[in-house]
Every structure is written in structure tokens, then in C-alpha cells.
């Protein structure tokens, strides 16, 4: 089976420091792959090559087995790659609908943006993702962390993404909202999306991910099937940079 995404031998250096050093990871349809590691291990940097925010120095990106070039976020979107950034990347001065459709506005037949239609669509998808959401007219800066998160998630899933990148999607959320995101991930997985999940919480990783790729100091420690390892094995990979004993290296 061809992987949905393959990042092969990716390297990026910033001013002589190798942030990502020949890392290879892959992702299959209907699979959640956790990306783990300390702050500064290179997870976010690696994934930004896929989302188009950064440009890799060397290495190749394959989508459905075909080599692609992703030069900017527009290229990534064209390949149905959607990203939920840790910072959420929302325009704080605009309302939920304007953020959800930013860069892909619905227009009337005269080419004007169709705010009413976009608000209606936003109400529809929010009714599914976060039924308590009611502030459709306010700038998103006036929303709570969870509400802002649901706008960011809605934006990523609305446009029929095939590949979803989630950078610590539950970091700023309360327990109830975290549960909501977990359920959403299961649902999207069932729909056949491939999801890269950057996550610090080991319990979330064990619960949500099929495989976990661990990085340390810009290099890949290894990739394991979550079902075959324990919390301690993964912690060992993160802290010591060693593969679990019984699997060998």
C-alpha cells in the first residue's frame, strides 16, 4: 500500500544549526501518527515543510507516491493538506466566518464575497463541531480559547482535507473540549483522513495515535506501533533518544 504522505530524508538548517536532520516519516490513509519530542526537537519545523510555512533544504515529499514541491501554504492547500497551528493562525479582528473561509471566500455571481452564505455555512459546521458556539458576529479575539480552537478546527476540516496536521490541538483546552477534539479525530480517521498529531501528552498519544514517531535534537529516534509499546518505552525514546529494548534498533 502506498503511503498517503512520505517525508523522506528531510533536512532544514537555520544559520548552521540543523533543526531537522535527514528525517523520514510516513502516514497512511485513516491513520493517526503522533510526532513526539522535547521542545526544540524539530517536530514543528519538520511539519511546517509539509504545510508550506517553511521550505526544506534537502529531501523529498511524496503524496500518494508522487513527488511534490510545496513552496508555500497555497501549494499545500492545493494538495488538500490542512494545518491547525499551535498559534491557531486566526485573524483576530475578523469574525468566525471570515476566518473559516479566509483565502477561500464564497462569492456571489458578481464576484463579491457572500457573507450571508459564509455565515450560514459556518453556523452549519459549528452546529456539528461545537453546538454551544453562538458568537458568529464578534471578532474572534473576543472568543474563549476553546471557541477559537473550534474555529481553527472547522477551517481545517471544512474543505475536504485528506491530510491533516494538528500542532498540539488540545494544549489550551479544558477537559470537555479536549474530549471533543478526541472524538473529532476518531471521526476524521474513520473518514480515511491521514493525521499528523504533534502532542506532548503521552496519554493522548496512547489513546489517539496508531503510530508514534519520536524526534530528538533534529533527528528521528524511531517510529513505533503504539499498540506494541508502553508509556515508559515512549518516554525513554523522548528523553534518552533510544528505541525500546525488545524491538532492537
Amino acid at each position: 500500500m502506498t503511503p498517503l504522505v512520505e517525508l523522506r530524508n528531510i533536512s532544514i538548517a537555520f544559520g548552521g544549526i540543523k533543526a531537522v536532520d535527514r528525517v523520514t516519516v510516513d502516514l497512511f490513509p485513516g491513520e493517526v501518527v503522533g510526532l513526539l519530542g522535547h521542545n526544540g526537537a524539530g517536530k514543528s519545523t519538520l511539519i511546517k515543510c509539509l504545510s508550506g510555512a517553511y521550505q526544506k533544504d534537502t529531501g523529498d515529499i511524496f503524496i500518494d507516491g508522487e513527488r511534490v514541491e510545496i513552496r508555500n501554504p497555497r501549494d499545500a492547500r492545493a494538495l488538500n493538506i490542512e494545518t491547525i497551528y499551535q498559534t491557531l493562525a486566526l485573524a483576530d479582528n475578523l469574525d468566525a466566518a471570515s476566518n473559516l473561509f479566509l483565502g477561500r471566500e464564497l462569492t456571489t455571481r458578481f464576484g463579491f464575497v457572500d457573507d450571508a452564505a459564509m455565515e450560514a455555512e459556518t453556523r452549519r459546521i459549528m452546529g456539528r463541531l461545537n453546538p454551544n458556539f453562538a458568537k458568529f458576529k464578534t471578532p474572534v479575539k473576543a472568543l474563549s480559547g476553546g471557541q477559537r480552537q473550534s474555529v481553527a478546527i472547522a477551517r481545517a476540516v471544512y474543505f475536504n482535507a485528506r491530510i491533516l496536521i494538528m500542532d498540539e490541538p488540545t494544549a489550551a483546552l479544558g477537559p470537555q473540549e479536549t474530549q471533543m477534539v478526541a472524538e473529532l479525530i476518531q471521526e476524521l480517521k474513520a473518514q480515511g483522513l491521514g493525521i499528523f498529531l504533534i502532542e506532548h501528552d503521552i496519554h493522548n498519544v496512547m489513546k489517539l495515535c496508531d503510530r508514534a514517531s519520536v524526534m530528538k535534537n533534529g533527528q528521528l529516534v524511531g517510529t513505533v506501533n503504539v499498540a506494541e509499546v508502553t508509556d515508559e518505552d515512549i518516554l525513554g525514546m523522548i528523553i534518552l533518544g533510544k528505541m525500546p529494548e525488545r524491538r532492537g534498533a
Partner: protein
Amino acid sequence: MTDAASASPKAPRRSLLQSLEIDTRLLGMIGAFVALCLVFNMFTDGRFLTPRNIFNLSIQTVSVAIMATGMVFVIVTRHIDLSVGALLATCSAVMGVMQVWILPQTLGLGIGHPLIAPATMIAGMATGALIGAFNGWLIGYQRIPAFIVTLGGLLVWRNVGWYLTDGQTVGPLDSTFMLFGGIEGTLGEPLSWALGAAASIAAIWALWRARADKVRHGFPVKPVWAEAVMASLAAAAILGFVAVLNAYQVPAARLRRDFAARGEVMPEGYTEAFGLPISVLILVVVAVAMTVLARRTRLGRYIFAAGGNPDAAELSGINTRMLTVKVFALMGFLCGLSAIIAQARLQNHTNDIGTLDELRVIAAAVIGGTALSGGVGTIYGAILGAIIMQSLQSGMAMVGVDAPFQNIVVGLVLVLAVWIDIQYRKRTGEKS
């Protein structure tokens, strides 16, 4: 949108303002403006609020107001343009040279050829747009801060204008071109009424369309009486303005001269009103076009998104560098348009045309509620800001305030307006 109503959704009793959904900031500005007018009117023994003075105020405001609409977009995207006055001078110099020297003499069209005015205007606006685009390229693609690019531009373009004309005053201007200055080109009474009526109908139609759109999607709408009040207010404002301009009579001496020029004798008791100046009509068209651009087009949406969060805009696939070029090109184009009106009003190209306009334009946008931190601003606010600035300046001159105090007051008002704006945003829980 940002008023206090949003803090308590579905409040059972809504205040009058909430029902009408009027922007309280706009209301405050209109209130300040009305107070200003009344005070000046009192101190000038009623000379401030005469049709003649309102007519003059209108035509004096147009040039700065047009540029201020463009400055809103520049400031919303977190940039600044200090070169607009200098750019206006270069555009004016190009147009002066075109219509007085190049077209009639070098190209031999002769004075008064019908092609001179349109060709000149196209050249002026194209010059502005090109220079603006170049500024935008330096800022967006070369990453030089807008402050520096346009501070340099202030010196460069002021003096390119000087060089083009050798510092001379260029004139007399083409007679068609002069129609765009104000007093030389007005629509007269019947046409002004017709346009006023058409504008009122258009405003009511726009309100009705917005309501129909909401109903179609099942969104909450204002009560019908509130819509009716808003529609009446809009129509009354438009028709009231036209009525005032129509009340300004053309002086009898000038009418007699016009009749004499046609070889006729003026009938006894004949009167004629100036009506709507073409320059004011242009400002209205610019205001509507810029508002539609800001609210109803992708470009406008991207301008505000990039101002609110440049990184988010880029990650959403918006080409923010190209966006900067477009915003500055539009600013340059509007400088060219303003140059037409400023030059035609002064009836010559003068070397110092547009001097200090950058300050008036930025002040108009800022007084109008454009936040220098980006992402927030309205076109109508900037125009109202320009009107307030011009009223303040003319009013003080009429009252007889000494020149240094006039400028001191204008400076203080600018700072005060921003302070009030900050307090207002704090009160409404909006980050500035």
C-alpha cells in the same frame, strides 16, 4: 459590530441604539462634528453654516478625503505612507506639463482639444499608481519598512515634481480639466436633485437588499421600524446635503458674464444655483467604491486579515507581498486622482501643491478611527475625519484665530482624538 450589544446576546430589552444597530463610534464622531459646527457658527455670527461656506468646505475637503480612504487600507495593513503629498505633487506636475506644454504644443493638438483633459488625467493617475506600486514592491518584496520607503519618497517625489516643471507655476489649465476643481464644475439644481433622489433610492435599496439576504438565511434582523428609521435618516442626509448646495446661488455678476459670453442678455430676476460640484461627486463615488472594496471583495477581506494577523493571512494562502503592492498602488492611484482635483481647484500647478498633505491625510484616517496597530478602520470614518479637520481649520481661520494657534489646535485635536479612541476601545473591551 463592536458595540456593547455583543457582550450580552439576546438581551430582552434593547436600547434604541442597539435596535438601530448604529456604530457608537460613528455617532460620537458625528456628535463632535455637529458640536464643532455649532460653536464656529456661534463665534462667526452665523457665517459658518451658510450654504456658501458649506459649499466651500466641501470642495476644500475632497482632495484630502480621497487620499484618506486609501490611507485607511495602508494603515490597516500596518504600514504608513508619508509620501502622499509629494506623490500628489509629482502627479500634478506630470499633468500640468502634459496639458500645458506637451499635448497642445509638442504634440500639436492645440489649446482646448477635447483629448487633452482625458489624456492628462489618465497620465496623472497612471503615474500615481506606478509610483505607488513601486513603493509597495520595495516594502512588500524587499522588506524595507514603509516608514523609510515613504519618508525617502517624500523627498524624492516632491523634488521630481519640482524638476519636471523647473519649479514654475504651470498654467493656464485646460478648460475641461478645470471642471473637476469644484466651483468651475457644478451640476446645477435639477441634476443635483435628480442625483440626490437616485442616491437616496440606492441607499434604501441597499438596506432592503441586506435585510432580504439575512431573511433568506434565517438570520435575526432589525425590527422593521428600525430599518425605516435608518432609511429615512440616510435619505434625509443625502437630500439635505443636496438642498444646502442647491441653496448656494451663483452670483449675479457671474451669471451676467456667462450670458454675455453666449451673446444673450440675462432676463430680469434670473437665478441659478451651483448645486453638487463634480469633485464632491467624485469623492462620493470613491467612498462607495472603496467601501464596497473593503467589505464585499476578497481583496478587502485580505487587507483586513493581513492587518489583523499577517502570519495567519500568509498561512491562509494569501500572497501578502503582492497585497502590499496592490494597497500602495491603490494609494498612488488615489493620489493621482486627488492631484486632478487639487490642481483644478487651484487653477494651476504650483510647486508647493500638496505640501503637508501627508499629515492631513494620516490625521483624517486616524481621527476617523483607523488603528495604527492595524486591522481596524473604516472608509466613512476617514472621510468624516477629513471633514472634521477641514472644518476645524477653516472655522478657526473664519473666527480669526492666529495662524500658529490654528496649527497648535489641529495638532492637539489629533492627539486627543487618538486618546479618546484608546479609551473607547478599552471601554468596549476591544484591544487597540
